[in-house]
């Protein structure tokens, strides 16, 4: 395949993925928007004023970046894990496997689909947040790059989960028992400065902490973690998971007998 043909193959997978999640928007876009709105109402408007300021910002302003990031993470992951596993389950992953489309294009297509859904829902949640607070955007490009890189990272994680999954139960275990705890304990609702020194150190093992804080720096200009460390951790995970995904696709794990 020449470069143009590869671009067409990539674009085809991306369009297919975008059409898939927009066709079922009541399942993919609406629920996270409603859930996050409830967070804004309950934690931001009702409980928030009782808590007071955090890191020099109103509580609702403090949790807004974390809530957006939480939505992006869960949706990017959910899109790829559901779509890739669905393709395996129905057998239509074979449509790509029999074609000359290289594995890295297949990976890029699915990951871009995850990023597209993560960003779509992220933008929708951001728009909803404007009803409760105002968006500051202290460092616009930091905000944009951190959110995109995070979506890439969790799309890759979703693909690895889908490759190994043998049933629909398998695609729910990781989000429920790993992703949700990591996200909730990743500094979405609090600053780790509030924790004891021991738990601060334990929290540093949570990769989500670096993403939430990097994104919070982009919006509010405050972070528990130095910005370069956030970028470093995210990039390291992307390289690690990306490399492992390519290894699995080339080997044919879960998709070739």
């Amino acid at each position, binding site marked *: 395949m020449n470069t143009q043909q590869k671009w067409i*193959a990539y674009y085809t997978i991306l369009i297919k993925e975008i059409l898939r999640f927009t066709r079922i928007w009541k399942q993919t876009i609406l629920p996270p928007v409603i859930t996050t709105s409830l967070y804004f109402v309950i934690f931001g408007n009702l409980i928030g004023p009782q808590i007071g300021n955090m890191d020099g910002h109103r509580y609702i302003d403090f949790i807004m970046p974390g809530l957006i990031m939480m939505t992006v993470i869960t949706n990017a992951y959910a899109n790829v894990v559901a779509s890739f596993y669905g393709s395996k389950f129905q057998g239509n992953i074979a449509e790509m496997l029999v074609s000359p489309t290289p594995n890295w294009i297949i990976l890029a297509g699915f990951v871009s689909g995850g990023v597209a859904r993560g960003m779509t829902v992220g933008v929708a949640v951001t728009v909803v947040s404007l009803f409760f607070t105002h968006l500051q955007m202290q460092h616009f490009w930091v905000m944009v790059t951190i959110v995109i890189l995070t979506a890439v990272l969790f799309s890759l994680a979703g693909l690895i989960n889908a490759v190994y999954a043998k049933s629909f139960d398998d695609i729910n275990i990781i989000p429920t028992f790993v992703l949700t705890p990591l996200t909730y304990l990743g500094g979405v609702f609090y600053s780790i400065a509030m924790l004891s020194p021991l738990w601060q150190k334990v929290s540093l093992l949570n990769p989500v902490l670096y993403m939430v804080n990097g994104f919070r720096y982009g919006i509010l200009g405050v972070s528990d973690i130095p910005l370069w460390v956030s970028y470093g951790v995210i990039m390291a995970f992307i390289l690690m998971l990306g490399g492992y995904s390519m290894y699995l696709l080339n080997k044919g794990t879960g998709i070739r007998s």
Partner: protein
Amino acid sequence: MTTALDIQGLRKTYHNGFTALKGIDLQVEQGDFFALLGANGAGKSTTIGIVSSLVNKTAGKVNIFGYDLDTQREQAKAQIGLVPQEFNFNMFEPVVEIVVNQGGYYGIPRQEAFVRAETLLKQLGLWEKAREQARNLSGGMKRRLMIARSLIHQPRLLILDEPTAGVDIEIRRSMWEFLRKLNAEGTTIILTTHYLEEAESLCRNIGIIDKGELIENTGMKQLLNRLDTESYVFDLASPLEHLPATSSNLCHCTLLDPTTLEVAFHKEHYSLNQVFSFLNQQSITVQSMRNKTNRLEQLFLELVEGNKA
């Protein structure tokens, strides 16, 4: 003549230790209409899976129009169109999108893919369903959709794994015509089927796989010529009271019921003309006749039984 498919020493052992292919050598020439037959579990689908890159091989070489599947994978894959045994498209996608997307995976621009998809869907009688979700199609339509999808990139080698399974006779015949035309236009076709009448009607060459080994690879005519006995069933105009006596043990008559006579004869010693002369001498009037069994079916069973021994 170019070899469309060249398989050398192909072996496959699955993770559970089951050896599905025990070193198969197979060549299919360009332009051929080739039947790959075998009982369930014989190794046909594994062979097709390896050729179409859906199954990893354990050993051996596969060349498709001269492209090595190991070292020139993209070029080799671009030559093949696959119609798998099971429905394997996204049931929730519209028909036309399934075909157009497949074109995209082969690098065909979307606009061009739409034009090709329209042509194919019209040829296969699916254009009216183009915007419907695939799950709403009947079984026969789903089979035709898989054929349309496999042809979007105009492959030089089309592999069909039981394409007419569960399809009614009318649609099956129309699919046969479509495939004949495609083959006449230059597409090499490999067909697996359990309908041996289908293989006999469509294919020029034949390979038979049994227990992971290729036990036969020859021309269809040559294979059928090996059958030394022909059996015909005659429907008679009036009931027979006695079985007609034959002069030789090379021809044998059986009265199935008073108006149905079965005649079996050795092809080397008898012709159908002689059988009719004999019936005339006996003043037996025949209203209609048919082959007792499909000839290829008979041979297939003999070969597979022979391999068991």
